[in-house]
């Protein structure tokens, strides 16, 4: 069997450098998240209070549980906020380094654009653009390979979902031109 043995090596030329400076510490992020959760708890709590948080003849009203859950969420976030302020350990922990943030953004921004394009051009066109664009621009893969992969993948998805399994995806002007 050892004659069938082959090494597989895949390199990552764009890997983030290990010594990149920090963008934020865990403490900062923890505080921000706690504040956001607190705001969410307040909004939902207020809405449920409006819906009704008492007990009527048939048990708790629709807002009863969500209201007290908002209180619990708010309380836990407040505790988290204080804990994060006091924590020395979290202050030392890195949330993300600059190089890492760049890489994460390199995925997140295209994903965001993809969602936006899906809204207007339909999923398949957006999918083609995302795959081709990402492979070419972020992955630095040859243009023909990128285009070919994008076309093939999008076509396979279209046949699988829209034709074979009757799961209908959002479509745009291009598909409409072909009568779909």
């Amino acid at each position, binding site marked *: *069997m050892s004659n*069938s*043995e082959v*090494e*597989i090596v*895949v390199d*990552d030329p764009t*890997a*983030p450098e290990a010594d990149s400076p920090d963008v934020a510490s*865990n403490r900062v*992020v923890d505080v921000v*998240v706690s504040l956001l*959760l607190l705001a*969410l708890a307040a909004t*939902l709590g207020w*809405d*449920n209070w409006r*819906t009704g948080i008492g007990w009527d003849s*048939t*048990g*708790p*009203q*629709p807002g009863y*549980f*969500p209201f007290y*859950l*908002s209180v*619990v*969420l708010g309380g*836990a976030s407040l505790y*988290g906020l204080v*804990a994060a302020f006091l924590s020395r350990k979290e202050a030392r922990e890195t*949330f*993300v380094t600059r190089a*890492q943030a760049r*890489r994460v953004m*390199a*995925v*997140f921004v*295209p*994903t965001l654009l*993809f*969602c936006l394009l*899906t809204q207007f051009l339909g*999923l398949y066109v957006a999918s083609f653009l*995302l795959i081709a664009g*990402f*492979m070419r621009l*972020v*992955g630095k*893969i040859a243009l023909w390979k990128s285009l070919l*992969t994008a076309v093939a*993948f*999008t076509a396979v*998805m279209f046949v699988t*979902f829209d034709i074979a*399994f009757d*799961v*209908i995806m*959002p479509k745009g002007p291009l598909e409409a031109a072909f009568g779909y």
Partner: protein
Amino acid sequence: MEAFGLLLHGFAVLLTWKTLVLMMVGLVLGIFVGVLPGLGGPNGVAILLPLTFTMDPTSAIVMLSCIYWGALFGGAITSILFNIPGEAWSVATTFDGYPMAQQGRAAEALTAAFTSSFIGSLVAVLLITFLAPLISSFALKFGPPEFFAVYLLTFCSFVGLGREAKHKTVISMSLGLLLAGVGMDTVSGQLRMTFGSAELLRGINFLVAVIGLFGISEILLTMEERLALRGHAAAISLRVVLSVWKDLPKYWVTLLRSSFIGCWLGITPGGAIAASFMGYNLAKRFAKDPDSFGKGRIEGVFAPETAAHASGTSALLPMLALGIPGSGTAAILLGGLMVWGLNPGPLLFVEHKDFVWGLIASMYLGNVVGLILVLTTVPIFASILRVPFAAVAPMIVVSCAIGAYAIQNAMFDIWLMLGFGVVGYVFKKIGIPLAPFTLALVLGSRAEDAFRLSMIGSGGDMKVFWSNGLVGSITTLAILLLFWPVLDKAFGSLGRLWRPAKVAG
């Protein structure tokens, strides 16, 4: 034997060309998502779930459970060949699997992994086969108070037994419960927390959240790391397979012990991760030469794989029987059941016999077909890892979007998925656990409905939760578990026995 007759009936339902083709398709897709970095079992199942929406529920669950088996097998491939555990529970497999691959015994290690997965699942399926009829006989005892008590038990065990900071578990769970309440309240027929938005009317779908929380956020996290990898390719010849199988009887103690640990932890909410470590550690402790573990010993592959699969499979029993998912993937399958309009719980065994036994039969068949499939196709799947991540990442994003959209045909859900992706990324980094969140999202409204129906029934009297032996003991147990950390301190030695995760380290 009632179970046997029902099982045969289940096989009869399955043995059609159409179902067999679906099984193969499911397995191939499953192995695919198991091997791809950044995907893995639960995500893969969630993304591929929409494929099943236009099928009848039985075909759908057959395909899904095959995707699940495929993903489990796929995880083993990357652990052994590349030292990359596809799932947390394959971590223990890498301890001895990768050294074996380095020594040129990759084929042996893979065969061992696949075979032991097969054995582990088989033991668990046998257990399900014989326990399922008992459940249906006790199904009618379950009214709203009993259901609520069971949900309460699940929530309390998470808060009480979780190892994360308590306030973070509470944040995660209360957020999940709140989001589960968005939309229409079934008991009063009123809308709440929708802020007049037609998009929020249908509520926040659990599966959309999962795809975002695990799929999208996983890609963001993966990008942070260095993606270079180095591994071994291997083809499996029949000779190797037979020689491994010939030696199997020698390891029957390990296999049996791991199966037992797996089943036990799968049914109680211990999970496959704890099971795989415990299986490995115990095999090491009971070995004559524990030092040889970690250096490429075949038992080190058998033990964790058997336990992980026994646990992953038996986790389906509480999911089907009580509506409580014992694992992440079981939670997704639970979400799927609800999409098809099947209500998991004891009544499922009474109302949808065909479905339950079709599923159980598909576990047997899926395992056999899966074993053969992976043994013959390993080289093809191993080479998937050569595909650069820059090509894989956008494809995963597209698959996630398709999955999220198809659940309710809503563009809004794609945005929701993106939002949950960011939330998942941030939460994972600052240590807010995601498991309680997903659990709360999937069970939240059912728990609330059960509570309120109990209240309507009893006229607002809380004593209903202690009104008979069944519901009383579950409720009491739930409250005990909630205060477990306190009790644990009081009876320290007892605690160590109950918490296997600690043993695993």
